[in-house]
């Protein structure tokens, strides 16, 4: 029974947690808009969601990190198993920064709306579960 409830909510839960991770990536792009040599990063959401929903087992083991400056081992810095990608350059800048503020802010707003859509969906699922339980 619990497993069924879990399965019922898993899709939206995974989507929400990936949306939250993507929001964080977009926030760090916006934060680093003036940092020389910073390269804007993002994930391919649909492939991240697909690999996060795929049966576990092939996930690489994570190394314990004792400092924030330690680099991730290859394969660990992957939200939902999808690789972190670099954005292609829209307009080159002299300091090597590839953040395009318009793109980032668009994506940020888009991602926030989709996050709230997922929230509405999961709330609806919980409401219908409650209706089924309480009759």
């Amino acid at each position: 029974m619990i497993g069924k409830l879990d399965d019922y909510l898993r899709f939206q839960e995974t989507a929400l947690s990936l949306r939250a991770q993507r929001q964080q990536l977009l926030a760090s792009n916006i934060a680093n808009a003036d940092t020389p040599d910073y390269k804007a990063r993002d994930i391919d959401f649909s492939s991240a969601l697909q690999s996060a929903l795929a049966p576990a087992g092939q996930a690489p083991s994570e190394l314990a990190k004792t400092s924030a400056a330690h680099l991730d081992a290859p394969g660990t810095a992957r939200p939902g198993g999808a690789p972190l990608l670099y954005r292609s350059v829209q307009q080159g800048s002299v300091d090597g920064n590839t953040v395009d503020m318009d793109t980032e802010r668009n994506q940020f707003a888009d991602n926030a709306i989709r996050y709230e859509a997922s929230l509405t969906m999961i709330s609806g699922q919980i409401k219908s579960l409650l209706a089924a339980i309480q009759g």
Partner: protein
Amino acid sequence: MSLFDVFNVAGSAMSAQAQRLNTVASNLANADSTTSSTGQPYRAKQVVFSAVPVAGSQASGVKVLEVVEDASPPRMVYDPKNPVADEKGYVAMPNVNVVEEMVNMISASRSYQTNVETMNAAKTMLLKTLTIGQ
């Protein structure tokens, strides 16, 4: 919870931009300071930003790596009546470029504003998350 990291990321960017604004204010305030505690004319200062990784996530915050002094030569102004003028009557004025500083100021305040909005959006998302199932 990765949404909480947005606060760290945007917060670090806000303090970095605030320090940049501070430097701009200091440069503009000292645009005419011909002497300082070292006896030399004031030199324009610029901040250097650097991305720092946030623990346990793929995101990067911002920090001010160092504050560098502008190495360009001082502006020489002919003013023989000035007490700090050299034997030829020239006064070394600070190498502050007021136009550059104004542009820097606007850029810093816009970036600060964007990061505040980022933080607000994350806050709204978190508050909505707390209402799941209600």
